[in-house]
Structure formats: C-alpha cells, structure tokens
C-alpha cells in the first residue's frame, strides 16, 4: 500500500516536473508560433495597412488572389518550376555522392568536407558570388561553356534561363542531403550484405534489394524537407534578380514579402501566407500518402 502510494507520488512529481521543464518552450510556441499562425488566419480576412484601422472584408482577399491575381499564379508557377526541378536532381546527386563517399578510398574525409563546404557558405554571400560567376559578359560560367564549344548564355538575365540558373546555384548546396544519406548508408548493418553475398547476390541486386529499401526513410525525409525549404526560396532572388527579368523569378515568398513589407497589404499577404501553408501541407500529405507506404524500416525486416 505504502509502496503504491510512493509510486503514484513519484509519477505526479515527474509529471509536474516534466511540464515545468518544457514550460518555457510551450509558452514560446503559443506566443511566437501558434498565436501568430492563428493571428495571420484572422488577419487574412481584413484589409489593413498598419496605420489606418483594419476593416473586415471576409473572403475577399482569397477570392482576389485566386481569381484575379495574375502575379500570384506567376509566382506559384515559378516556384513550382524551381522546386520540381531542384528537389529530384538534388536527391539524385546527393544519393550518388553519398554512395561514392561510402566507398573506402583515400582522402575520404577531405572529399566529404569539400562537398559539404558550400552548405556552410552564407546564402547572401553565395548569391553575390554566383551573380558574378553567371555574369553574361565576363562571368566564369560562360568562359567554361564557351571553352567546350557551347554558345554564351544569358543566365540570370534571361526569363527562360533564370530558374535553371537558380537551380544550378542551389545544387551547389547538395551537401546537406548528401551528409544525411551518407550517415544512413553507414548505418546499414554489414551482416545484411554478408548474408546476401553467401546467397550469391550480385552487387546490383544488393544495391536494389538492401541499400535502396533501407534508405527509403531518409529519401522521404530529405524529399519532404527539400520541398518545404526550397518552396521558401527568398534571399537569393531578393538579392540578385529581384524577381526579374519580367517576373520570371518572382518566387512565392518574394511576392508575399512585397505585399507585406513593401506595400503593407497585411491582410492580403497573410492570405498569401495561409495559401502557401495549405499548399505545403497538401504536398506533404500527398508525399506521405504515395511514398510513405514504400518506406521500409529496419525493424520490420
């Protein structure tokens, strides 16, 4: 009896302590995350410029965005093009590099460091560097491609090439997913390969039947975070293209930023933000639905 009392006392004590330990962060979540999300939903039904009193407009902002705002559709198109081009390429290159860096060869840590290094370079600095590299007249990129006999490109100054150029710039940062893949590859138990070898499995079947299935959780992880983060590209375009030429690189966040902080359309920008929120949520759910089933976890095998 006394023992049981002590256990419940211990439980209560642990519960109270647990809540105390996480209290500051819970408070922060409410003030700085959940509160603002609800507030922005609320604001999206208003017209407000921060100075005059806000007034209720119902769904007007949403209706205007979806049915009248051509720039909204343009920014959605541009951003989708960027995300759709970048994420698959990035995943493939990251996976390939991780596979190569998982082979036991000389200078491995050197290679790992150099491929990861661009991730460390601040985005604002890399934007400036790439702007100079992609300079149509005097840039390094054109020097390299003319050397192999290709014509000069306009890169960031051409409406058609600007998004591929941005994708190229982002691919320089492939080290982020690469290092996660690499960690995953190193965690694959070697016994699995040994058993397969005894059964006479070829290198190819080992790859497709052991390596790839075991990497599916990380492919999912990198894919989802890749989509979420690349959807929010801002700094690069803000700094070096400013959405141009001819709105060809007007990304979603840049467009929302302009409404919110340049034109002070607080309600309209909040509605844009919520639409993005729903889009990202939708994509995440879709990815989970279609690829989640194909994910293998080691425990299940």
């Amino acid at each position, binding site marked *: 009896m006394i023992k049981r009392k002590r256990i419940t006392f211990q439980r209560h004590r642990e519960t109270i302590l647990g809540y105390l330990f996480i209290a500051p962060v819970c408070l922060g979540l409410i*003030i700085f995350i959940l509160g*603002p999300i609800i507030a922005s939903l609320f604001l999206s039904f208003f017209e407000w410029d921060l100075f005059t009193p806000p007034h209720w407009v119902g769904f007007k902002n949403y209706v205007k965005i979806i049915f009248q705002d051509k720039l909204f559709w343009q920014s959605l198109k541009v951003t989708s093009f960027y995300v759709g081009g970048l994420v698959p390429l990035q995943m493939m290159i990251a996976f390939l590099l991780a596979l190569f860096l998982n082979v036991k060869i000389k200078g491995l840590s050197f290679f790992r460091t150099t491929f990861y290094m661009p991730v460390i370079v601040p985005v604002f600095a890399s934007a400036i560097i790439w702007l100079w590299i992609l300079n149509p007249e005097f840039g390094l990129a054109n020097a390299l491609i003319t050397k192999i006999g290709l014509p000069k490109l306009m890169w960031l100054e051409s409406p058609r090439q600007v998004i591929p150029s941005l994708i190229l710039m982002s691919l320089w940062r492939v080290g982020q997913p690469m290092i996660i893949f690499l960690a995953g590859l190193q965690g694959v138990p070697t016994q699995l390969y040994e058993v397969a070898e005894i059964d006479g499995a070829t290198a190819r079947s080992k790859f497709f039947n052991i390596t790839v299935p075991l990497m599916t959780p990380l492919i999912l992880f990198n894919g*989802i975070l890749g989509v979420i983060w690349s959807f929010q590209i801002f700094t690069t375009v803000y700094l070096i293209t400013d959405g141009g030429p001819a709105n060809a690189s007007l990304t979603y966040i840049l467009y929302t930023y302009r409404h919110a902080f340049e034109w002070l359309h*607080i309600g309209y920008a*909040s509605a844009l*933000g919520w639409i993005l929120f729903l889009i990202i949520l939708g994509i995440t759910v879709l990815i989970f639905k279609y690829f989640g089933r194909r994910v293998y976890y080691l425990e299940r095998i």
Partner: protein
Amino acid sequence: MMRISSKQTKVFYKVLVWCFLISGTILFCLPLAWMISTSLKPLSQIWIFPPKWIPKPVLWGNYIAALKIFPFHLFFANTCIITLFSLIGLIISSSLCAYGFARLRFPGRDFLFMIVLSVLMLPFIVILIPRYILFRYLGWIDTFKPLIVPNYFGVGGYGVFSIFLLRQFFRQIPLDLSDSARIDGCSEFGIYARMIMPLSKPGLIAITIFAFLYNWNDFLEPLIYINTPEKFTVALGLTCFTDLYYTNWSYLMAGSVVAIVPVLIVFFYLQRYFIRGIVLTGLKT
C-alpha cells in the same frame, strides 16, 4: 585466377570513383576559388573575356579598400552581440525542454514533442507577419530584441532543431544514472545541471555552432526588423552596399571573403561535432 580479376575490377572501380570525386571536388571549389581570385584583381583584369585566373599584380589593397567601404567591425560586433545573447537563451531553453522530453515521463509528452517538431514544416512567412506586428506594437522594431528574445523560449532560429538534437544526446545517457542520483537526494534540476549537461558537451557544442551559423546567415529577419545601417548584421551590411558596387567586383568579392572566413574557420575547427550533430538530427526522425 578468378580472384585476381575480381580484385582488379575492385581496384578499377576505386580509381573510377576517385577520379569522379576529384573532378567533383574541383567543380565544387570553383566558385570559392573564383571569389578569392576576383578579390585580388585590379579593375583592369575584371572586365576581360575570357577571364584570367591569376591576378596580376596581386592587389591585397582591395581588402583594405573593402573594409573601408563596408564597416565590417560594426556589422561583426552587431552579429556577435545578437549571436551571443541568442545563444545563452537558446541553450537554456532548449536544453531544459529537451531534458523534459528525453528523461521525464508525463502524459501527452510524445504528442507535445510532435507539435514542437511540426514547427519545422511551417512556412516561416505565415508566422513572420503577425510577429512583426507584435514586435512593432512592443516598440522593438529597429532593435536586436526581435532577433534575440524568441531564443529564450526555444523558438528562435535554431530552437526546434536544438531541442531535437539535445533530446537525442540526453537519451543516450543511461536512465539508471538519474535514478541513483535521485536516491541520493539530488533534485531534478540538480541532475539536469550537474550531470546531464556536463555529459552532453558535444551536443551543446553542436548547437552552438549551428546557432552561430544561423545568426550569421540569417537574412530575412534582420531585413525586416532592422532599419538603421549602424545596427546591421554582416548579412545585411554586405548586401546593402551591393547595388552601389556592382561595378567593382573585386571589392565585393573581398567583402564576401571577409564575411565567409569566420564561418569556414568555425566549420573546419569544429567539424567533428558538426557532422555528428547533423547525423543525429537526420537519422532518428
């Protein structure tokens, strides 16, 4: 006979992989090499095509000129102040929270942890607009407070990641240790402060590096909250001058080198903690 040939193919593959990695490395280093090369060139060598790699003469003076144009000492000091105060808050709040999630049992724990993690999935702009209004209402615009204070609640730049990462570190420490400390009459806070924290030094170092990099790189938030040039961070400082100096690429590149060097030093010096941190955050999700 069979054996030798399979060994030979293995060596052949290794050489192939090696060549591939070498060419990849060269490609990945080109932008930085180009930046350094440009930063040392006289103007006459910038506007030529095809470009030359080796600056002639090597103009170290570009760096002095760049430092005169960009008041880096000021931007550097601002960034350091923001980073330092953010870091103190971040370490306290995220380690407390991670301790609760990793080492105590209470109802709703895992659900609350999922909520904390789901913050990573939110598009930042949704949160940013109301936050701006809140800070404006508090009169914090054009101060460092909007960049620092959220860290004391674990929801600043790298907050959620830090909670996640520290939770992984804390979970690796055997629970028996806490139990024996409890029997000896140690308070829960005492266990946290005197046992768990000192045992998790690599984790704390990892979040310190991440938070440093985050504050150094962050662009959108300072852009929105800070207006006066004297209060600019490195990110804002370097970029706000770009429009004026797009003609003088060697100064801009010298400025970029100065902005990147601290980050690279931290990276190379503390690489091992860094990689471990990423591995831990990436794997256990």
